[in-house]
């Protein structure tokens, strides 16, 4: 067992959270990345178990994707480090540096910074998922998920203006998030310059943490593209974390759609075989005409 090599792998993986055997389009290998990838590929079963155990002890899992995943060059392999679903959240990697990077002042309350990050993160996800009608489970479609800084700034301003029209000075007790993001009135109000700074800090932090990558699109525009790491992580923890973001009505609607599709399929199958219908099929009343 080559402990020194396993430690080297663990250190690299925790720092960068991804390792490419062949770098994706538009990027070169990071320092030591190629050597680390070769070591990962050469691990025997015991060594891989040891590495997995070390990562698990820190609350992480090592996932591997081959070239059947979109965006991975032919013959390439990618390893990503994901937070394990039930692992404790206090680990070597944390969010404190993110809050420090996003805040505009050293004495900014943590709540303000966290609210800003959450707001910008949700808007970014709307570009990466909602705009291209992409479900969270469609990890491989990360190659289509892009956003520009200008788009994010414009959307942020738009949403804040909508809120400002509702209430120009929200009560900090009743609406603490709106109060923090709108910043009050007069000189304290959130300005376009503030938004620009926040968005810039946010995108830089996401880029440095490997959640987004800065690429130049085919028409020369600079865009931020979602990484495989980000897409896989969100998919992995969706049912634990993000599910709280989804409106209950959306879950209910999708549940009904799924059950009615199942009922229709069961009804078609019952003409061929003597199988009893599933209980869900008898309970729902919605009909389907079988269209896709």
């Amino acid at each position: 067992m080559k402990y020194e090599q396993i430690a080297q792998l663990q250190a690299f993986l925790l720092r960068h959270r991804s390792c490419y055997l062949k770098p994706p389009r538009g990027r070169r290998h990071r320092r030591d990345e190629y050597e680390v990838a070769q070591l990962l590929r050469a691990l025997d079963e015991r060594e891989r178990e040891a590495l997995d155990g070390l990562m698990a002890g820190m609350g992480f899992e090592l996932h591997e994707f081959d070239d059947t995943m979109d965006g991975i060059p032919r013959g390439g392999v990618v390893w990503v480090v994901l937070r394990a679903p039930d692992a404790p959240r206090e680990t070597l990697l944390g969010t404190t540096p993110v809050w420090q990077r996003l805040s505009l002042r050293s004495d900014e309350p943590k709540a303000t910074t966290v609210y800003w990050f959450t707001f910008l993160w949700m808007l970014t996800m709307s570009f990466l998922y909602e705009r291209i009608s992409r479900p969270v489970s469609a990890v491989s479609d990360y190659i289509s998920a892009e956003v520009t800084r200008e788009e994010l700034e414009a959307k942020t301003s738009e949403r804040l203006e909508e809120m400002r029209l509702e209430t120009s000075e929200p009560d900090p007790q009743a609406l603490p998030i709106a109060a923090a993001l709108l910043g009050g009135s007069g000189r304290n109000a959130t300005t376009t310059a503030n938004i620009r700074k926040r968005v810039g800090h946010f995108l830089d932090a996401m880029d440095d943490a490997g959640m987004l990558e800065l690429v130049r699109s085919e028409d020369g525009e600079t865009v931020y593209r979602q990484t495989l790491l980000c897409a896989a992580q969100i998919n992995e923890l969706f049912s634990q974390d993000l599910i709280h973001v989804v409106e209950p009505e959306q879950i209910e609607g999708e549940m009904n759609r799924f059950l009615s599709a199942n009922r229709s399929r069961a009804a078609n199958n019952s003409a061929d075989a003597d199988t009893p219908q599933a209980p869900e099929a008898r309970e729902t009343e919605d009909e389907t005409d079988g269209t896709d």
Partner: protein
Amino acid sequence: MTEENGDLYQPGEGGAATTAPDRPDKPGYVFLLAASIRMFDLHDAGRALGADHTQPPPEERSADNKGTYLSIAWDLLYYLQERELEGAFDYVDISSFAAETADAYNVTPADVYYVSNTLAQPTQLDFIDPRDRTTRRTTADTNLIRKKRRGQACMLAKAGREALAFASGYFKWVHAGAEAQKLVGDLQFGEYKSFFQIGTRLLNRIRQETHDIRLALEQPEVDDLRQSFLDNARRYTATIKELSSIVGQAQVQLTAPQTIESIDTWLTMVGEEEGYAFESFTGLTQTLLNAIANMQKLFSQFLETVQSREHALVGVVRFDAAAADFLRQDGAGTSSVDFLDTMFSGIGPLFPDIEDLHPLEHRGSIEVRVPRQRQPKTFRKATHSARDKDRIEKFIDANREEILRRLESGPLSLGEIAENGDTWLDCTELDGLAEMTSFFISPMILGLDDGAQIRLELGGHRVWMMSDGWEFSGPDVRMRLLRVGAPADQQEATP
């Protein structure tokens, strides 16, 4: 072609076919379209059901009837397929393709982009469900390519890959074993070019199927595809095993002496001129086995997880509405700072949080201490009053004169001792340099004469890092030596 390339066989090398197979008179796609064109006339027919009159199908095809757009379209599909085989399942900029194709066909790049935009646009196809012959079904999975929102980057869509597969000789997945058996036959009978054609087609198909499995795993709305995999799981798994076994046979056959000799002869006569080598054969079989293994792994994952995944029921999350709604929250529950912090410590950007591992947090608590030899205990006997001095006393004994001499010349602060005391004090007896400052805590250990007093004053909070690695902090202390009974202006020693 070595293992460092990752893929042991690069389709396209050695003349292996990635485009349509050799046909003497027509490209392969013509056979596909020829069999389909009247079907689309019927699909788009203007005649109403039950109408008395009949209308002949259209013979005149509108606009450009030289087949230019059609040919450009298939050129584009083959181009994207080649990029996919050489590169990755990823978007490809077609600007250079458009420029070259425009030259070749004597059209403008805009004409080429018209073709790409058309292929990227899905349309609805209606058919009657063959099971009951009355239910109308639709599918919009008809775009042959996917195109990025910005620019001219495209990639093949599922329908596009299927169109190419149909054009090159489609086979059902369950017949993949029979297809793979041809590899063994080709090796046996010396049909080596056919070996590569079959192998490449098989490899493309395996990768396509693997891609479809991933699609079924990820997209909640592809219920039919997912259900098809589930319904036919046993047959699917059997096909994978069969493939693996047959390709393994081909690999073994390549080690047989007569096969090696036959291949060498062929290479000498024909193969080497066309870019083949013996490693091309072994590389192809190994690449096939790797692809089959990856497919098996993904299919197992599909069977294991697809049924239990919760967010298959959610579809597209409305993040924009969630963001707008977030502004209106009261900061409690799922909008509280603690909850959000915890959530993003999972799905958010993470950095090494070195606060928890700062060296000052751990210095002295995890340092391995070498046990020192125990000092003999001090004790008193009734008849003997001998007492062993502890190390602080010994330190003071060794430095008393120096310390008092220093105090005579002016005040002495704890900070001065901490910062450079080891340069003028003998610290031999001490465990750590911080113990130099012990006489500030109990100054009477200095053994002052009756005419002397010590005045202590507190200063600001300081942190001192000792040269031996220890650290301590607290208020600075200033010690002054006062001479009792002396005139007021002479009571305190001044520097």
